[in-house]
């Protein structure tokens, strides 16, 4: 028991960098990070709680307050399913500290238990964040709340992570097995990440729409339908709100039994599975040996592309804007919603609907492209490999161009396809499409060169994980901030200047092209010197 506690403690201290609080040098940073984490938790809590409060009034009127319990259960459950499939391969299989832990004089099952308990704590945290605020609203709004509801909620709160963990482990095992044989290991994780992000966006939009009472009534009728048709939801509500003992026992059996089975089976083969996964005597891929010739710029571009597709966090962070743009453009095409009527509503605010439509499209394209800068972290991501590009007989400009080509490859194809989809979906005329097309090109180049410029100014070559560079570095933050400003700027200036909107957007594209050239000039001169000093 002592060794189990020691393992969990060491893992938590290491994962959450708790020693930072003890170290006087890092204490301020650690406290700052803790404060930010607390703020995020508070905002999340308030957002979900607030949304539940809005919904609860309508639910009360319809005598369907129990729908809140469906949300209490369903939201964290879906999140945990995804998280567990996502995290399982790295937590239970081929984990980084496997060699170290397995060489210690402790039982294999203790190592497994420590990993599972860590995952369970994670599950409880998600449940607390996503489900508890809704349950709190349910408790507040329920007239004459029975104390048994709270007791049962706590009991089921404790067992809910078991089923996602069991299924997640099983799926994770299959994914890990498949990905071990695949070259593109991250495909499953990358696609999963985008699906999750799009789902979160979709849910958050839906929650905002629920403020509209009619939409809410419609949604509630659908959700209450789900409750009665999806047996797990029904069982949960029956257990917590109606104290149905059969439902409670069935629920416990469904969530606990697979977990026991998983522990029993996986506990026996934990070492065997991990050993087989760590075998390096995989078949050599001799067929893969091909001698191709490319120009230096293309060679650098191809190297960048391969590094990009192998770094999940890099793709998820820089490609999401383009996924958002593409999904929204498809939605415009397939939805029967009359977007032109939305734009016409703005005439009441003094906007010309046709003008507003173009400016809004320009803003959305600008926003999505400017948040997709791969170059903002591409110099930093060279990290320990920086010696390679620095010792190559090519000018730094050639390296920069190769890196910028990746940025263009990410933004331009999807940007151009999306402009076509919007052209058809909203019913733009050809000239309006052409204006958007030119803007996409201008934003694409600006996004690439701006990111490179920021990365040269604020490089972060020493890092432990690419996440530090892609998510937390100054260059990425400043590129996104500057990009957002550049995307919003035309929207702000547009009502002030008295010019035809299409001409105005072309003018903006021209100004941004000039800005791109000016930044490129800086990159070619002072940027090269900064690169050489790295």
């Amino acid at each position: 028991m002592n060794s189990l506690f020691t393992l969990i403690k060491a893992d938590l201290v290491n994962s959450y960098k708790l020693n930072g609080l003890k170290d006087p040098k890092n204490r301020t940073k650690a406290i700052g990070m803790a404060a930010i984490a607390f703020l995020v938790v508070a905002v999340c809590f308030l957002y979900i709680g607030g949304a539940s409060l809005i919904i609860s009034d309508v639910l009360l009127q319809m005598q369907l307050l129990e729908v809140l319990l469906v949300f209490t259960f369903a939201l964290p459950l879906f999140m945990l399913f995804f998280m567990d499939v996502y995290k399982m391969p790295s937590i239970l299989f081929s984990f980084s500290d496997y060699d170290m832990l397995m060489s210690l004089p402790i039982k294999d099952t203790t190592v497994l238990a420590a990993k599972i308990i860590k995952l369970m704590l994670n599950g409880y945290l998600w449940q607390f964040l996503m489900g508890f605020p809704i349950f709190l609203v349910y408790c507040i709004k329920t007239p004459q709340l029975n104390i048994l509801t709270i007791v049962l909620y706590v009991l089921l709160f404790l067992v809910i992570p078991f089923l996602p963990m069991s299924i997640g482990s099983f799926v994770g095992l299959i994914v890990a097995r498949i990905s071990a044989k695949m070259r593109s290991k991250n495909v499953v994780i990358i696609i999963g990440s985008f699906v999750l992000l799009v789902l979160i966006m979709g849910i958050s939009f839906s929650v905002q729409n629920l403020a509209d009472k009619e939409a809410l009534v419609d949604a509630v009728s659908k959700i209450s339908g789900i409750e009665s048709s999806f047996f797990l939801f029904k069982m949960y509500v029956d257990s917590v709100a109606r104290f149905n003992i059969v439902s409670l026992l069935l629920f416990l059996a469904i969530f606990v039994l697979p977990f026991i089975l998983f522990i029993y089976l996986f506990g026996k083969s934990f070492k065997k599975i991990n050993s087989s996964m760590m075998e390096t005597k995989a078949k050599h891929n001799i067929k893969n040996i091909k001698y191709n010739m490319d120009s230096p710029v293309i060679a650098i571009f191809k190297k960048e592309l391969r590094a990009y597709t192998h770094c999940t966090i890099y793709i998820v962070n820089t490609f999401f804007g383009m996924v958002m743009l593409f999904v929204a453009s498809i939605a415009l095409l397939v939805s029967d919603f009359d977007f032109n009527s939305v734009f016409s509503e703005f005439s009441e605010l003094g906007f010309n609907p046709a003008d507003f439509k173009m400016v809004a499209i320009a803003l959305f394209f600008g926003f999505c492209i400017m948040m997709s800068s791969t170059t903002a972290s591409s110099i930093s991501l060279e990290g320990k490999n920086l010696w390679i590009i620095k010792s190559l007989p090519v000018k730094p400009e050639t390296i920069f161009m190769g890196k910028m080509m990746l940025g263009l490859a990410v933004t331009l194809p999807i940007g151009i396809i999306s402009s076509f989809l919007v052209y058809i979906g909203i019913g733009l005329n050809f000239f309006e499409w052409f204006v958007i097309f030119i803007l996409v090109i201008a934003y694409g180049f600006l996004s690439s060169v701006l990111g490179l410029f920021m990365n040269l100014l604020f490089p972060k070559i020493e890092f432990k994980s690419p996440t530090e560079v892609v998510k937390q570095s100054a260059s990425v933050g400043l590129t996104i901030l500057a990009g957002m400003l550049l995307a919003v700027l035309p929207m702000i200036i547009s009502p002030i200047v008295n010019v035809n909107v299409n001409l105005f957007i072309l003018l903006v594209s021209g100004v941004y092209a000039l800005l791109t050239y000016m930044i490129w000039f800086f990159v070619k001169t002072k940027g090269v010197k900064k690169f050489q000093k790295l």
Partner: protein
Amino acid sequence: MLKIENLSKTYANNIKAVDNISFEIKSGDMFGFIGHNGAGKTTTLKCVAGILEFEQGEIFINGKNVKKDPVGCKSDIAYIPDNPDVYESLTGIQYINFIADIFKVSKHERERLTEHYAKQLTFTEALGDLISSYSHGMKQKLVIISALVHSPKLLILDEPFTGLDPQAAFTVKEIMKNLCKEGGAVFFSTHVLDVAEKICNKVAIIKKGKLVALGDIQTVIKDRSLENTFMELAINE
């Protein structure tokens, strides 16, 4: 081949890593660079390879100035670091192709040289595998093959034998000797003094950034071993 004149390099914390060193490596020379950890060996090698900027002195490779014509200088050399950190997302052959593309090596030549050196280093089967699956020694072998695929005139190696198996270490020594015989030159740092004594015709011993011994190996060691000479010069004041 390589001429270093009054080279000095100071790091941001005002520590003088290299302090006014000068020497010359001629065609056919096998030049061993010896010193304790932090003496300034890697810094010197990186300055020659064009990786680090330096504030004082000049470095010439085949008559070309590293500061004024960095691309021309880099075209003539290959640098092999002590820690072979390479792009883990590429396969071995993709990395070699990448280096060969940059050095504009023809398809035929890269194929011939890759097959030749991969066979010598028993690496052929691993060429198609992802670098992330390689051990330290395999990465070292890959970096050596990619360095030789563009037939450099000057080979710069930082601790080249670390992590290599005995057979590969022997092969690398033979490759280094052949390069010198064919008119090239090798400039390498090492802690393996026996090897340096056996294969080098010239050595330099660096201590706290300054050269404390330089010249033909026999002139430097006289009737002692290189190890004794090093202990005397570098460790004892």
